[in-house]
């Protein structure tokens, strides 16, 4: 999506102030990225630094990183959203506390430990990382799904049922649409968490931009280490920005 196209869509949704905010972020990201690329071309790098920071391998690591992020995110969505919805149904209200506690625990547990632990059980470093990332990032989506749905005015649910809408129809046509803004915020938070945590996959041969950091640490190549950290941060900011744009565009009209 080009900036201009995004800008045009955003103006129709939010006010001037909101879309201004949405332009500043990608502009800053682009400026830093440009600076990095200039530095990469001009800096006096050693041969081993140059080979690790070769644009083709950087691009490959970025794609791996995105793959880790999005595959984990998709699994999180598929698990956490339906689970969150179920936890708001009166019949399962009692499970809400315990399940959220477990999800909290998943996020609080050190992600690095979890990845290494899982790598002992799952031979593929990539999939071990995915499982750990899913456990790590499920909480914000789960919690925001629950909060978003519980935040819907209960009188609206009653009005819907009172008109003869079934419970499922009220869920899909009233509760979920109205919970969308809160749920999207949770998904964006999860994605940003995932971009950061996906760096740890490199410890178990899961790939991604974390490789630059582990290489930098192991071989004392600080420029490589910093490059890795910088690229991950830029990726996180980009995804955060994309999330904000989606939140603006997908916000139900009339709210």
């Amino acid at each position, binding site marked *: 999506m080009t900036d201009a196209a995004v800008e045009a869509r955003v103006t129709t949704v939010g006010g001037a102030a909101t879309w201004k905010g949405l332009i500043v972020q990608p502009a800053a990201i682009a400026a830093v990225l440009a600076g990095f690329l200039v530095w990469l071309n001009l800096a006096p790098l050693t041969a081993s630094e140059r080979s690790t920071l070769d644009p083709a391998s950087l691009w490959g690591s970025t794609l791996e990183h995105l793959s880790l992020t999005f595959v984990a995110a998709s699994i999180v969505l598929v698990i956490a959203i339906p689970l969150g919805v179920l936890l708001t149904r009166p019949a399962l209200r009692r499970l809400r506390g315990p399940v959220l506690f477990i999800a909290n625990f998943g996020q609080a547990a050190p992600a690095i430990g979890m990845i290494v632990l899982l790598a002992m059980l799952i031979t593929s470093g990539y999939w071990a990382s995915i499982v750990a990332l899913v456990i790590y990032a499920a909480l914000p989506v789960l919690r925001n799904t629950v909060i978003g749905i519980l935040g819907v005015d209960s*009188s*609206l649910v*009653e*009005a*819907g*049922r*009172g*008109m*003869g*809408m*079934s419970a499922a*129809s009220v869920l899909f*046509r*009233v509760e979920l*649409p*109205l919970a969308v803004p809160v749920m999207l915020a949770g998904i964006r938070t999860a994605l940003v968490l995932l971009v950061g945590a996906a760096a740890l996959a490199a410890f178990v041969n899961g790939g991604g931009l974390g490789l630059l950091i582990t290489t930098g640490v192991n071989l004392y190549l600080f420029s490589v280490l910093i490059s890795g950290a910088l690229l991950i941060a830029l990726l996180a900011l980009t995804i955060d920005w994309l999330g904000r744009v989606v939140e603006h565009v997908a916000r*139900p*009209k*009339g*709210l």
Partner: protein
Amino acid sequence: MSESAVSRPSTGTISGKSIVLDNVTKQYPGQSSPAVDGVTLEIPAGKIVMLVGPSGCGKTTTLKMINRLIEPTKGRIVLGDEDVTSIGGDELRRRIGYVIQAGGLFPHMTVAANIAIVPKMLGWDKGRIAARVDELLELVSLDPAQYRDRFPKELSGGQQQRVGVARALAADPPVLLMDEPFGAVDPITRQRLQDELLSIQEEVQKTIVIVTHDFDEAVKLGDWIVVFTEGARIVQYDTPERILAEPANAFVENFIGSGAGLKQLTLRRVGEVTLADAVTVHAGEAAASAIEKMERADHNHVVVLDDRERPVQWLSRRQLARLDTLTDVPEDKLPVVGQGATLNDALDTMLVSSAGAALVTGRRDVFLGVITVETVMDAITAARASAAASIGGPVGTNSDAIPTVAPDAPTSAGSSMSQAHDD
């Protein structure tokens, strides 16, 4: 029975169905006593029945058991001649309009989409739905072109409530349930919405059950009022007139609050009382001939009408003496009330003008006669007497209301009800 005091001028035909709650009980789990304790209540077709009572007495629970938003623990609910106690709740609710406080509109849907929900569920085609939406917006006094595509947040509270009523009427259900529908709007808007509901009801003639906290609202809107106490025990089920004139006990008296007499004034319309004559003259006549007419009739005032028989001036002998010819320049602060106004409004108009009387107009503001303070007093005395007499008769309210065939005679009333369920 003082039937005349109950019936309102009606233009439409009754499209409502009667509702019978037959020994209905709701026991919430974990509570010592039932929230609704064996209520038997017949709600006549095409009438407005108001449920009133102190907070927590079970009004909402009773109302929601009619459309089974709350499942009764025990008892039967009959809609028209159909026992609906065990049919699917969703299907039942599509046939019963439901209005909640503040309208309960879905904020992410336009006004039209909100109104279209039930017709869509019932599988109406697009054209029919669109036509119905416009028709309903007209009915609730909102211009369809202006409002149908708005979102609820772009409406005032009163307008939202109107759309809420339109939505409930969308599929033309025979029954309308309302839980404190006007509780969230300011007093002036509330009055207007109440008046509108009455004029809509004249047209649609639904069976309407309304829960309210506001006894004045119950008096104004209700054909019948149910006064509940704890556990939805019926203390009195009667017309507003009779509840005001003959409260069943101190509890009801307390609930009515002060000013029962003044409240009765809101029950009668100017058009229902006998008006006094007046001497009328037309603009353009000579003042001298007006004075002559006045003296012949032995009156002290004349009413000047314009060429369409609308009152423009009300002149005393002294004012006439100063004039040559009569003009049709409208007089400031002329005390005029329409024949649809309540006696309460009329009295208010009289007290504000110094005249101690007011001019009454009918359709197209045509002059009908004069209403005086004495007329109001006589009317209210007569109303009290007839309400009291209908109770003090040899049969008593319960038994004379028992024949369930009479569509406007609820079966249950007062003490015998609670006795029946005390055992």
